[in-house]
C-alpha cells in the first residue's frame, strides 16, 4: 500500500521509487494465464513456440503491465490513478530453473519513472509520470506513462 503523497511535495524531474520484480518463471506465466484467462499457448507451451522458431515461451505483455502497475501503486494510492498507458516494445522470456543464475537477468523486470508534468485538470491537481520497464540486460519491455490526481496540503 502506498503512503499518502501530496501534490506540493512532488517536483517535475522527481524519480518514482525503483521497483524490481522477482525473476519471472514459467510458473508465474501459468499463474497469470489462469488469472487473466489468456491461454495463448505462446505463453506456456514450448512445443507450440518452437514451431515458429522461438526458443522458449514468452511472458504476457499484460503481465509486464501488471507488474508495472505494482510499481505505481506502491508509490501512489490506487484511487489517485487516473490514466495508465503503455507501449509494448520487447518480449520477456522466463528464467530457466535448470540454470537460474545465468538466466534470471532476462526475466527480472525493473520499473523506473520520472515526473514530467504537474497540472490542474477537472478541479484536481495532477502529475504525469513517464515510466519504463526494463530487464537486467537492458532490454526495454515497455514504455508509457501514468497520470495521478494528488491531494493538496
Amino acid at each position: 500500500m502506498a503512503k499518502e503523497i501530496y501534490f506540493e511535495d512532488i517536483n517535475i524531474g522527481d524519480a518514482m521509487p525503483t521497483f524490481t520484480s522477482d525473476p519471472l518463471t514459467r510458473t508465474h506465466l501459468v499463474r497469470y494465464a489462469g488469472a487473466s484467462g489468456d491461454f495463448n499457448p505462446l505463453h506456456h507451451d514450448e512445443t507450440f513456440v518452437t514451431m515458429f522458431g522461438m526458443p522458449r515461451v514468452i511472458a504476457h505483455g499484460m503481465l509486464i503491465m501488471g507488474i508495472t502497475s505494482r510499481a505505481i501503486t506502491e508509490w501512489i494510492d490506487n484511487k489517485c490513478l487516473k490514466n495508465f498507458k503503455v507501449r509494448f516494445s520487447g518480449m520477456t522470456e522466463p528464467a530457466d530453473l535448470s540454470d537460474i543464475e545465468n538466466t534470471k537477468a532476462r526475466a527480472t523486470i525493473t520499473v523506473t519513472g520520472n515526473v514530467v508534468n504537474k497540472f490542474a485538470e477537472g478541479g484536481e491537481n495532477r502529475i504525469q509520470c513517464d515510466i519504463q520497464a526494463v530487464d537486467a540486460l537492458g532490454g526495454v519491455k515497455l514504455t508509457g506513462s501514468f497520470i495521478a490526481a494528488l491531494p493538496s496540503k
Partner: protein
Amino acid sequence: MADKSKLGMEFSPYTFEVEKGKIAEFAMAISQKEDKDQVNPLYVNREAAQKAGYKDIIAPPTFQACFPLWAGGGLMPVIQALGINLFRLLHGEEEYDYLGAIHPGDIMMGKSKVVDMYDKEKKDKPGKFMEFTVIETEISNQRGELVIKSRSTLVER
C-alpha cells in the same frame, strides 16, 4: 490483413461478475505471490480497504484485462471479425482511463468498438506496412456508471 471496412464496428457487449476470489487470484499473479496474505491488502482485505477510504476491496489497475477473456470469448472472435492475421499479431499498446473503482459483487458490462485503423510504413522495409487496429472499450458497472475506458492497439507486423 485487417479489413479496413470494419472501422466503427461494434462488438456484442459482455457481462462479467466480479468475484472476490478472482481479484485475489489476479493480484497474486501480478504480484508473483503464492499466498493472498502477501499481496497489497487493498486487493484482498475488506477491513484494510475500508480503513484506506474505500467502500470495499478494490481491483488492481489492469484487472479488467480478464473481463473479455473470461466473459467475452476472448480475442479470437474480434480477430476473426476484423480479418486480422493471428500469426502477424502483436499487442502494441494498452491504455486505461480510470473513472471509478471496481469492487467484489459488481457486474461489469463492456462495450467495444473499432475506433481507428491505419498503416505505418516499416522503417527498415520501405514499401512494407505495419497495420494498426485500435479498439476502445467502455466498461460500466451495474449502476450504469462508466468505470473504465480502455484502448487496445493491435498490430499486424
